[in-house]
Every structure is written in structure tokens, then in C-alpha cells.
């Protein structure tokens, strides 16, 4: 029996292959509001759902950082509006220590998982994979829809944890036991932590459903002629991201199951020899809190690449399109993505240098960690050489891409410091770490996401984002990111620990009072500019300048061969065949040659 007949049948069976994008004719099928906007199985709509849910979380998570920066910048002041906003958590206009820790924890969880994982790879893997490989939809549109709704459920549970009486979880986004395992340890470790775990379990399911789909789609659904080495780098990056997620989230899941048992069923997987004030000695014996850290960071480190790789892929594409030059070192770019994906699994213990880890084992992890500098440097130099002597168009998407490269260099270099176990003894858990990972992973990936939104907005909504607002957004955010996080390196070197509620109590850190206030002020300005971006986004969906040609950026990839507003199924009629790689820019005197154009007889070889 041959499988060929059924290879693509399931994905295409449920699709409406007629185009209904660029006109308003009535069609023989009817999409209701529910099937088009809510329980949609169209990858483009699911991408938008991920994006907008991610934006809601970005606003909430960002607002939380503004609130705790208010405490850090003005530890002696009271702000009556805080009591109106937070009630008993800001009695008299001052955030309580419990609320402060809850804000820090939720800010971290939400930004890492809900914004930069679901909001970033959820959006762009869904949107770009079928469009750029030439498929009508994902391998399984139904599972794809489920992936979003599991994320939605996770969001609802996380949101509800903000409103329980004892508050949301407050033990840090890493949820180390015993703080996370013992309800008596802190108010946030009670119901808030249970909801946190349920939410994260749902999130793992969402990520698994999505990841399996992305992998199967990239491998199986490429259009004729789209060999793996003709794929745009976005797809390679999203593919490796999905593989990382599929292999690392299950380990976190195991860790969480053991944590649930420790919390609720009297086990001692992570607990041993514990005494709690007011409760007394606990019977738990024989467990290891370090075990949780191993399980957590086996996900936790690949997770930073799950966040970063999609941004890298999109930046590679946008830099090439807007430099009007082929990406420099295409195969090296794939190779370095692969190397990063492999190394991502082999470096987790560099988060644990000071846990009492065997120094010899530590030195192995130092070596493996520093090895990541090699593929990272390859990527940086390839981006720079792509820009070199390019005919650069400074679109907002391009600005954010260049900003990404800048941030990745700045944040990556401090990674070399932190990767050394000897230096890490001094630097761990200080503001130096905060500065490092916010620049290299947080802000850089946000820049990648912004670049992607500005660049593909015309494909998403058939309109452009406003450029002026885009430039303001870019410059204020870039300057703000450096002004916020650069000084934190000095604070960290001076020994200022992270996660403290009030530094004014320490003589050593009084010197930073003004600096903390400055950082907080900039944080508020940067947050305000993100609201400007949101205004731009929603305004432009309805009132933005209309896209009039199918290929406004003059790009080679397949998504620009679809109608301006592609319907479910993406292409009218046949799916185009691919004849060349995605980066024929400036070849033989032509500005760009789309992938669907057959190779001419007199064409030079690359």
C-alpha cells in the first residue's frame, strides 16, 4: 500500500481553497464570526490570536515592572494611587514586600513564557511557516487551534492567580523549592502557587501541540522545489525552536509533577531537614532541592534559545531584504543555529555554579557555555557583513533588526563573564545578571518581535504601520533599554543583589539611590512608548496606509506571492513552485529575484 495518496490529504481536506481576500464577494461557504475570529483553524488568524494575547500579557507584565521599579526608585515615598490599584497589597500607597515579590515573580513568568515564547514563536511560527514554505496551512490545523486555546486557558489560570486572597506566587519565576513546595513558607506559596503550576502545565501542553505541528509542517509540507537549503532562515530558526521546545518542556513538566506531589501529597522529592518558624520541624527527609534546579534549568536554558532563535531568524531575513543583499554565510547561519540548539541542552548547570556543584563538573559547563560564543559570533559577523556595503533601507523593521544586533552584542559579551564559574561566584544573583539577561534575551528578543511585527504587518492586515510612530518607538526603546540596563552592570559589580525590596537600608548601596531613581524614570518612559506602539498597531489595523502591491518590500520569499489579504489556503489556485533560494538580491544586476522565478539559462551560479 502506498502512503503517498494520503500524505497531504488531511491538511487540505478541510480548507477552502478559493480566494476571498482582496474583494468582498459572497462565497458559497459561510464563515461565521465564531469560526473566523474565535475558533479559527486558519494559521494566520491563530498567529494573530497569539500576538494579541501576547500583547495583553506584555502590557500587564510591563506594568508590573513599572510598579516594582516605583518601589525601587522611590523606597521612601508613598503613592496613594497604588492603594486604589492594588488594595491591601499597597496599604497606604506603599507596595508591601509580599506584593513586591509577587510582582517580580509574575513579571518574570509572564514575560518569559507568555510574551516571549507564546507571543513570539507562537505568532511567527504560525504566521510564517506555512506562508514561507508554500503550504496552505499547518499539518494539523485543528491541533494548531488547540495549541492556542491551551495557551488561552493557561493565561486565564495565571490571571486568576492575581486575584486570590493570598496573592499570586511570589518565590521567583524559577519557582525553587522549598519556597515553592511549602504552602507555609509564604503567602504566595499557597493557592497562588497551585494556580501557577496548573497554568504552566497547560502552557507546556500548548507548547507541545504547537511544536509538533511546526516540526511536521516544516519537514513534510514544503512546496515543490523548496529544499531545506532553500528555506528562508526564519523557517530554520523556528524549526530549531520547535525542536528545543519539544525536547525541553517535558523535563520541566516532570519537575512540576514532582513539585505538585511535594506540595499536596506529602512526598519529599525536593525537601529535606526543614524548619519553618511558627510551624516547627517538617518530617520530610531525603529529598534534594538541587534536583529541582537541574530539572528546571534543563528546560530553563534551552528556553532562552526558544526565545532568542525566532528573533535571530526574523532579523536575518529582514536585514537581508532591507540591505538588498543576500544574507552573508547562509549555510554558516544554519550551522550556527544547529550548534546553538545542541549546546542549549549542555549548559544548564551554569545557572547553578554556586549550588555546591562539583568544581570539576563546573569547569566542564564553563567550557560548553563559552563554546556558545562561537556560533553566536558567527551569527553576529554574518549580520554585520550582510549590512556591509548594503543598499540599506531604514524601515522601522530594519531599525529594530539592527537594534537587535546591537543588543545581542552588548548582552552577549557579558555572557562570557557570567559563563566563567570563578567570576560567577561574585556576580551571581546580582544586578549584573539582571542586566545581562534582560539585554541579550529580553530586550533583544522584544526587538526581534517588533522587527517582525513592523515587517510582516502588511501581510497580516494589508496595511502599513505608521512610520513616524515606529521611529519614535524605536529610538526611545533602544536608548531606554541601554539607559535602564547598562547602569545595572555597575550595580551588580558593586555587589548589589537582585530581588531585594529596599536597598536604602544598606550603607553600601546608598550610593545607588539616585541611579535607581533614574532607572525607574526611564523604565516608565519606555513603558509609555510601548503604549504608543500599541496605539499604532490597533489604529493601523483599521486606518493604516493600505498596501497596494503584493510585494511591498521587494522580498523574495513566498508569502509575498499571495494576495494582499490572503484567505484560508493562502494561494489562489496552485501553490507556487520554488526554483531558487530565498536570498537572490542584487544578482546579475537585478534588485531581487523571487523564489518562484525559474533559473535562467544565462544566470550566474552562486
Amino acid at each position, binding site marked *: 500500500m502506498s502512503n503517498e495518496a494520503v500524505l497531504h490529504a488531511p491538511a487540505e481536506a478541510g480548507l477552502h481553497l478559493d480566494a476571498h481576500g482582496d474583494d468582498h464577494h459572497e462565497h458559497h461557504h459561510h464563515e461565521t464570526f465564531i469560526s473566523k475570529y474565535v475558533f479559527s483553524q486558519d494559521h494566520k488568524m491563530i498567529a494573530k490570536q497569539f500576538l494579541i494575547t501576547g500583547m495583553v500579557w506584555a502590557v500587564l507584565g510591563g506594568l508590573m515592572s513599572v510598579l516594582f521599579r516605583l518601589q525601587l526608585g522611590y523606597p521612601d515615598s508613598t503613592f496613594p494611587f497604588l492603594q486604589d490599584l492594588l488594595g491591601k497589597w499597597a496599604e497606604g500607597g506603599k507596595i508591601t514586600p509580599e506584593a513586591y515579590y509577587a510582582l517580580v515573580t509574575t513579571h518574570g513568568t509572564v514575560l518569559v513564557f507568555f510574551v516571549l515564547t507564546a507571543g513570539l514563536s507562537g505568532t511567527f511560527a504560525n504566521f510564517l511557516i506555512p506562508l514561507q514554505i508554500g503550504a496552505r496551512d499547518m499539518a494539523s490545523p485543528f491541533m494548531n487551534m488547540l495549541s492556542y486555546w491551551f495557551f488561552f486557558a493557561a493565561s486565564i489560570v495565571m490571571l486568576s492567580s492575581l486575584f486570590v486572597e493570598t496573592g499570586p506566587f511570589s518565590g521567583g519565576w524559577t519557582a525553587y523549592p522549598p519556597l515553592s513546595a511549602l504552602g507555609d513558607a509564604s503567602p504566595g506559596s499557597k493557592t497562588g502557587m497551585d494556580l501557577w503550576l496548573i497554568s504552566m502545565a497547560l502552557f507546556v501542553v500548548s507548547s507541545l501541540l504547537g511544536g509538533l505541528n511546526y516540526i511536521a509542517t516544516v519537514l513534510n509540507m514544503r512546496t515543490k522545489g523548496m529544499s531545506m537549503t532553500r528555506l528562508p532562515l526564519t523557517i530554520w530558526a523556528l524549526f530549531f525552536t520547535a525542536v528545543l521546545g519539544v525536547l525541553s518542556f*517535558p523535563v520541566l513538566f516532570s519537575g512540576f509533577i514532582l513539585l505538585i506531589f511535594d506540595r499536596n501529597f506529602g512526598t519529599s522529592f525536593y525537601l529535606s531537614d526543614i524548619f519553618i518558624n511558627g510551624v516547627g520541624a517538617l518530617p520530610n527527609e531525603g529529598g534534594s532541592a538541587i534536583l529541582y534546579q537541574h530539572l528546571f534549568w534543563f528546560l530553563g536554558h534551552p528556553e532562552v534559545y526558544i526565545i532568542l532563535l525566532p528573533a535571530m531568524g526574523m532579523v536575518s531575513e529582514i536585514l537581508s531584504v532591507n540591505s538588498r543583499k543576500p544574507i552573508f554565510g547562509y549555510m554558516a547561519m544554519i550551522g550556527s543555529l544547529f550548534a546553538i540548539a545542541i549546546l542549549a541542552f549542555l549548559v544548564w548547570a551554569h545557572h547553578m555554579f554556586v549550588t555546591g556543584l562539583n568544581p570539576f563538573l563546573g569547569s566542564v559547563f564553563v567550557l560548553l557555555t563559552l563554546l556558545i560564543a562561537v556560533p553566536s559570533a558567527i551569527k553576529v559577523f554574518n549580520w554585520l557583513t550582510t549590512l556591509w556595503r548594503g543598499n540599506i533601507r531604514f524601515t522601522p523593521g530594519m531599525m529594530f533588526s539592527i537594534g537587535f544586533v546591537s543588543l545581542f552584542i552588548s548582552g552577549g559579551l557579558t555572557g562570557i563573564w557570567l559563563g566563567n564559574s570563578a567570576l560567577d561566584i561574585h556576580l551571581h544573583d546580582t544586578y549584573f545578571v539582571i542586566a545581562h539577561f534582560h539585554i541579550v534575551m529580553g530586550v533583544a528578543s522584544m526587538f526581534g518581535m517588533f522587527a517582525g511585527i513592523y515587517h510582516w504587518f502588511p501581510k497580516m492586515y494589508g496595511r502599513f504601520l505608521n512610520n513616524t510612530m515606529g521611529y519614535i518607538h524605536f529610538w526611545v526603546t533602544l536608548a531606554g533599554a541601554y539607559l535602564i540596563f547598562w547602569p545595572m552592570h555597575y550595580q551588580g559589580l558593586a555587589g548589589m543583589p537582585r530581588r531585594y525590596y529596599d536597598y536604602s537600608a544598606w550603607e553600601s548601596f546608598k550610593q545607588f539611590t539616585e541611579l535607581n531613581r533614574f532607572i525607574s524614570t526611564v523604565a516608565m518612559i519606555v513603558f509609555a512608548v510601548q503604549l504608543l506602539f500599541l496605539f499604532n498597531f490597533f489604529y493601523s489595523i483599521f486606518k493604516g496606509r493600505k498596501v497596494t502591491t503584493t510585494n511591498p518590500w521587494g522580498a523574495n520569499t513566498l508569502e509575498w506571492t499571495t494576495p494582499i489579504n490572503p484567505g484560508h489556503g493562502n494561494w489562489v489556485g496552485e501553490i507556487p513552485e520554488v526554483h531558487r533560494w530565498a536570498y537572490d538580491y542584487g544578482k546579475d544586476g537585478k534588485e531581487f529575484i523571487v523564489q518562484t522565478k525559474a533559473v535562467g539559462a544565462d544566470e550566474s551560479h552562486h
Partner: protein
Amino acid sequence: MATTATAPITKSWSGGKSPFNVEYGKLMMWYFLMSDAFTFGAFLISYGTIRFSTNGWPDPNAVFKSFPFAPEGANAPLVFVSVMTFILIISSVTMVLAVQAGHNMDKKKVTTNLIWTIIGGIAFLSCQAWEWNHLHHEGAWWGSNPFLNADGTASSTNFTNYFFTITGFHGFHVFSGVIINIIMLIMTLTDQFEKRGHYLMIEKAGLYWHFVDLVWVFVFTCFYLI
């Protein structure tokens, strides 16, 4: 896959077809099983870490030595679990036969072998239920361990904690597999696969079932043999 690609190897990755000549569902199943293998791997490595950092551990021969309707004080170490393991492995054989029959579009044989597989799965789960119940009556549960270390010293509760968590997680997988197989049986009986012209769904269910069996081999080794 028995079917080999007729096109040269360079063509199989060039788009327009599946490079492995499999439909997306089977590809997803393989990746899902890899993912699940990491879940079980994390559990078993955690178990190993804790066990080898603990001073003593109970001797499995002294713990798992009973069987249903055994006379008081019977000493039959690992006999019952060997029967359980045998049942699960036989159910894998019948699953293979069901998949094979599916290739030949033999509905009757698919049905028979699926029924045997389901019976095997339920039998395994029943055995596990009996064993859990028996251990529970001896005082073992999450957070309570009545068994002494092999050297006679008091044991940590992590022996039972890990035993119930991991065999429970595996049992849940077997349970899901039985449900999947029952759905496959219903789909076979209602001629859904005949209408599609292929029994590929059974193959995917089979992959899952074999995986669950394979995991048991590791769980069995780690808890009963070592």
C-alpha cells in the same frame, strides 16, 4: 516503513513530498514519543540521583514478593511483576499483528488482535491495581514507607514516593493507550478505515503502545531489578 522511496535520495528533501515518505501524523507521533521519552527520562534520572545519594534503599526482592490469593507469608519475589511484564509484552505482539493485518486491509484480523491488545492492557492495569492495593495495605503510600533498607536501617519515604509516582505515571500512559485502542477498535468496526482505504491510524496507535511497553522495561528494571 516497509515502503522505500523510489526517487533518488537527493530528491526526497527537495520539497513537494514528505522526505521520510510518511504522513504528518506519524511524524508528529515520533516527535511526541521523543518528547515523552524525555519526561520519563527526567523521572528516572531524578529517581537515580536521589537513590544513589541516599545511604540505604529497600531490597525489591523483600518488597515485591506477594501475588493474588497467595497463602500468608508467601515468599515469591518478583513473580507477580514478571507476569505483569509478560502480559504487557504479549500485548505488544498482538498490536504488531493488528498493524500487520491493517497493512493487508484485513478488517477481521485487525479487530481480533486489537481486542487482544485491549484485554492485555486492561489485564496489566488490573495487576497494577492489585499490587498498589496490596502495598497500600502494607502501609506504603506517597509519604509513607513501611519497608526497611536492605541493611535493616530505617528507609526514606522516597522509595515509595518514586515508586508510586513513576509507576502511576506509566500506568496512566497504559490507560490512555487502552482508551486509544478502544477508539481504534470502534473506528475499525464502523468501517472508517475501510472507507479511507488505509489503516494508518492503527500504526500510530501501535507506535504509542510499543513506546509504553518500552518505557515499562526501563521502569521495571529500575524499580524491581536494580
